[in-house]
């Protein structure tokens, strides 16, 4: 990766400005032209070096509900249950992890009741228990990856 791309990633994970010409403002700090900065961000999005560029919303503050949930699924039944879980639009991420509890997914819904409904739906369709692990307290969020 080029040094300029690294500098863009390292400097632009948090404080993209809200002003009439924000790219020009950031480009000046990085010693680039506005056009070059825009072109580089476009290319890094296209090449999937960046997954996103823009505002990160806190959905909970906007009235949504979230939870982390885990299941213990026997290997021979894993793919069937993964299909059931992934099919729910309320499931945002789903990871297989190396543990007795081997399926971990994030539920995002409009209301707390929506979380319970989604869990009930998964339990009924899969035949396995869902461990609901909503966050009780948050200590930090937002990793600053060094490129």
């Amino acid at each position, binding site marked *: 990766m080029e040094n300029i791309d690294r500098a863009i990633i390292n400097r632009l994970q948090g404080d993209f400005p809200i002003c009439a010409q924000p790219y020009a403002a950031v480009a000046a700090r990085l010693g680039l032209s506005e056009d070059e900065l825009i072109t580089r961000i476009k290319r*890094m*999005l296209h090449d999937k070096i960046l997954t996103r560029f823009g505002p*990160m919303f806190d959905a909970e503050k906007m009235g949504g509900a979230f939870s982390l949930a885990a299941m213990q699924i026997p290997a021979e039944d894993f793919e069937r249950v993964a299909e059931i*879980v992934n099919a729910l639009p309320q499931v945002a991420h789903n*990871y297989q992890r*190396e543990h007795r509890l081997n399926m971990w997914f994030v539920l995002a819904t409009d209301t707390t009741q929506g979380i319970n409904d989604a869990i009930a739906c998964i339990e009924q369709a899969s035949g396995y228990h869902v461990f609901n692990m909503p966050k*009780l307290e948050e200590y930090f969020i937002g990793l600053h*990856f060094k490129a």
Partner: protein
Amino acid sequence: MDDIDRRLVVATQSGLPLTPQPYHTIAAQLGITAEEVMARMQRMLDSGAIRRIGVVPNHYALGYHANGMTVWDVEDERMTELGTKIGALEFVSHCYRRPRHLPDWPYNLFAMVHGHDRSEVSAKAAQIAALLGDACKQHEILYSSRILKKTGLRFGG
């Protein structure tokens, strides 16, 4: 959050326009002024509805191949104090207190640790263990072996 805020969220959740005046571009889409777009986004940023504005790097592309969910069985009375310490570590991304499910699941503190490989993740977990000391009875690192689904959170429009 009123209706215009919601329309702003829908218009920007997949990303900011890559035009020299992105807030003007959004304003034109929504039929409001750029000044109003900027004022509303600033207000959402101040209230925390927008956590931050910037790039989200693909951590795999940056060489962070190992992602370990470290889970800790921490004394309840010391949870806030210790959770705050762990959350402040630069290599911890998400750090939450979550409910135990005894006897199946004794862990109440979750800290996501990213590293270039598993040995880096376990070395970082050892630093967390040292910080927690006697207040932690047991811990585990759960490595992800496969992404089964990954979609960004989306709000209806």
